[in-house]
């Protein structure tokens, strides 16, 4: 069935970063050093997955259409309803491309990746997580929010399309209780850490041995090892037991201090960070400790050194582009600190049929273009041509700050944006501090959740400042 591996990758790190030292003065305990990423109030796993998926498709070879979409998360926006379909719509994938959720646990991300690699053509594997924990607890401080996506699968006999080829996989599965969360709970619970640590040490070793055997390699031939898992002591312990602690790339080790553990997104995030800095011909081993162990062995191709194939929004650039969020706001965004809203009616839930009719606009941000070239946002029925605008950048013509309007996180910052190449839209801004907005500021579009009403998430696009990471 030919060569299989990673064709491209995309990462979305939320703009907001919580300084862990802010936690202890408020919660009385916990916290630490460094920062963690915090999904904005208008982000969830679906919206972050869209951003990561857009990036992975943007960086894939031109014309590559994924054969399927897989979405993995431990914190899905919906149960019962597929979340991958909203990502599918935002990415404007053809209706014939199936979209599946693989949700509930960190390990589901590995299942989605496995499904893609076992498929008949490259698929898009998106993973995202919002990692919560009670204030002052370890999960709060060591967790991080984010999304990562891989275009992965078989590419035939020519490995030229691959950044990294999969050369071995070992799995060890076992039922035991280390951490758990009832559906709907805002935080997980954990058994005494020593128990899980012991299980993971054994499972990691078994999967490691099987993966090397599958790859026909010995341990010394592995250049870099990425150990990933929610159990911090087990992650460090397995690296030490396997004798690979020195082989963890700085770009991956550094994620703990700046981002935190991003749950289901972390395996692909670590791979992306490693591939951003990898040289051709390196052997990478991804070790994931999650209700068992999976070890996936990869060999990078010449393509990782090809400038044209490098990520246009690498992890390091996204790390550098963050802005702070006060601890109180981070708590409010996750619902741990309910803040009084403006005394305005909450918005009504969006209409399902109306949303379905305007799916290209609402999810895909597709406007229309008239015969005279005028771009209409939203599209007008009398125009003949669709005009995709999600990747358009624009300039702030004028703006206002609305402290009266309903918002999940007031105030609303709102701007009139003129897009390069035509089209104007009055649109909400996000990932921005009101005091920093200026006429003439440059913006890009980002997929967000405007609000939730009756349990219905209202997804649409907002503009956000174009930052260096976005300029590639």
């Amino acid at each position, binding site marked *: 069935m030919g060569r299989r591996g990673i064709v491209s990758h995309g990462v979305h790190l939320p703009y907001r970063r919580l300084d862990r030292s802010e936690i202890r003065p408020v919660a009385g305990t916990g916290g630490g050093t460094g920062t963690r990423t915090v999904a904005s109030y208008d982000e969830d796993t679906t919206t972050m997955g869209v951003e990561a998926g857009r990036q992975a498709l943007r960086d894939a070879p031109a014309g590559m259409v994924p054969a399927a979409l897989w979405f993995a998360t431990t914190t899905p926006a919906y149960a019962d309803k597929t979340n991958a379909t909203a990502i599918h719509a935002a990415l404007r994938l053809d209706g014939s491309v199936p979209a599946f959720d693989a949700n509930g646990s960190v390990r589901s991300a590995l299942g989605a990746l496995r499904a893609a690699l076992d498929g008949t053509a490259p698929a898009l594997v998106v993973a995202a997580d919002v990692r919560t924990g009670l204030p002052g607890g370890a999960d709060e401080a060591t967790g991080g929010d984010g999304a990562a996506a891989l275009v992965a699968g078989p590419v035939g006999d020519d490995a030229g399309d691959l950044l990294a080829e999969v050369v071995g996989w070992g799995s060890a599965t076992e039922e035991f209780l280390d951490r758990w969360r009832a559906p709907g709970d805002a935080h997980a619970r954990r058994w005494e850490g020593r128990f899980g640590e012991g299980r993971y040490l054994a499972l990691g070793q078994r999967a490691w041995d099987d993966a090397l055997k599958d790859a026909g390699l010995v341990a010394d031939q592995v250049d870099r090892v990425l150990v990933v898992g929610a159990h911090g002591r087990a992650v460090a312990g397995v690296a030490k037991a396997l004798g690979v602690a020195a082989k963890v790339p700085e770009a991956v080790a550094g994620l703990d201090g700046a981002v935190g553990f991003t749950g289901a997104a972390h395996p692909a995030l670590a791979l992306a960070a490693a591939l951003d800095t990898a040289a051709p011909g390196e052997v990478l081993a991804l070790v994931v400790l999650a209700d068992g162990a999976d070890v996936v062995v990869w060999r990078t191709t010449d393509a990782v050194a090809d400038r044209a194939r490098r990520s246009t929004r690498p992890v390091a650039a996204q790390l550098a582009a963050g802005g702070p969020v006060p601890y109180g706001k981070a708590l409010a965004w996750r619902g741990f600190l309910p803040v009084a809203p*403006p*005394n*305005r*009616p909450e*918005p*009504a*839930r*969006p*209409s399902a049929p*109306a*949303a379905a*009719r*305007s799916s290209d*606009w*609402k999810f895909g941000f597709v406007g229309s273009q008239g015969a005279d070239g005028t*771009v*209409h*946002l*939203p599209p007008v029925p009398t125009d003949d041509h669709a005009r995709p605008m999600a990747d358009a950048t624009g300039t702030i*013509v*004028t*703006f*206002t*700050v*609305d*402290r*009266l*309007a*309903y*918002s999940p996180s007031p105030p*609303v910052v*709102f701007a*009139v944006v*003129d897009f390069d190449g*035509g*089209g*104007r*839209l*009055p649109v*909400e801004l996000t990932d921005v501090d009101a005091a920093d907005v200026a*006429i003439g500021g440059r913006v890009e579009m980002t997929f967000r959740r*405007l609000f939730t009403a009756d349990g219905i998430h*209202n*997804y*649409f696009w907002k503009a956000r400042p174009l930052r260096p990471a976005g300029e590639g």
Partner: protein
Amino acid sequence: MGSHGIRDRVAIVAMGCTRFAEHWDKGVEDLLLDATGEAFASAGATKDEVDAYWLGTAQSGMSGMVLAKPLQLEGKPVTRVENLCATGSEALRQAAYAVASGAYDVAMAVGVEKVKDGGHQGLNAFPIPTDGTNRTLTAAAMFSMAAPAYARRYGVDSDELRTVLARIASKNHFNGARNPRAQFRREMSVERLCAMPAVAGGLSVFDCAGVADGAAAAIVVRAEDAHRYTDHPLYIKALSFVAGNGSGLTDPGYDYTTFPEVVRTAADAYAQAGVTDPRAELAMAEVHDCFTPTELVLMEDLGFAARGTAWKEVLAGTYDLGGDLPVNPDGGLKSFGHPVGASGLRMTFEAWLQLRGEAPPERRIATVGDRTLALTHNLGGYPGEMVSFVSIVGTEPSA
């Protein structure tokens, strides 16, 4: 094809208007009975002598029965109309056209809004199911964008413009303080207004219209019948209306310093009324000062000031009670309050009082006498997508 108007074919012969206030003790029915009762008494007519009714309410009720029930009308046609904040003006417009057409001899236009039963601050439109991509910004924030746009285009310092906007609010508070029917009856100094914290763009709560309950009513008849009801009718000189197509929101050429729908209705109304120099010919104007920057822009859109000069006119007092062209002598939306469906007719009510010399002495304008015309301007919506209405009424039928 053409917009010809009905100049001098229809006259207003009676009006009524409640106080605009937080009427916790009055419902829609009470407000309707109060306003229509005053109009019936003024005309010396009964509800049965009115042949047809137009009821304007944005969201205080559905259908003509909202009026037919409290008035206990017997077999009368009542049409409920809605056109955002210009709803009251729309009721007058339809009633006047019905009389002009000859379909009815006597018609009544009524506007009412009961906004203070909602439990939330500000005005809130009732939700219509949508795809969820529509803006949820407040009107205050939308109109706030006109202020920096104006300052930038005409090179006005932002602090100076802040003073100009406060001057507009201060004027309207001054006028409202002299109006027993107004919601807010307290003068406010420019200094105090400038010190208020911003809530939407650069606007404070005191840059916004008052939110009030209220109702107003007018009885219209054919001009030749007017003197059966009053010695001093107001003749309708012009009624103009435009519903914008929203292009301002998406047109990169639109710069938020003008409201094109208003410019069009003003031009149409002046043509209907034969007005060529509104600044000199009008005795007064009631304009839709939903927010202070709106009134500033309207002064230019309505032709009361040359482009880029209204801010100087405001500072010079041109639109004050004793100015060259008094604007909002009743306090405007700012002080009189803004019960959506009633506001258009409330504007006409002030023209009714002032042109006929019935305004209280403390706010009577000096321009009446030489000049016999008044303009009302009523809009609904936002910069870039609005409905606009302009009427001109006068005490003298044209020769």
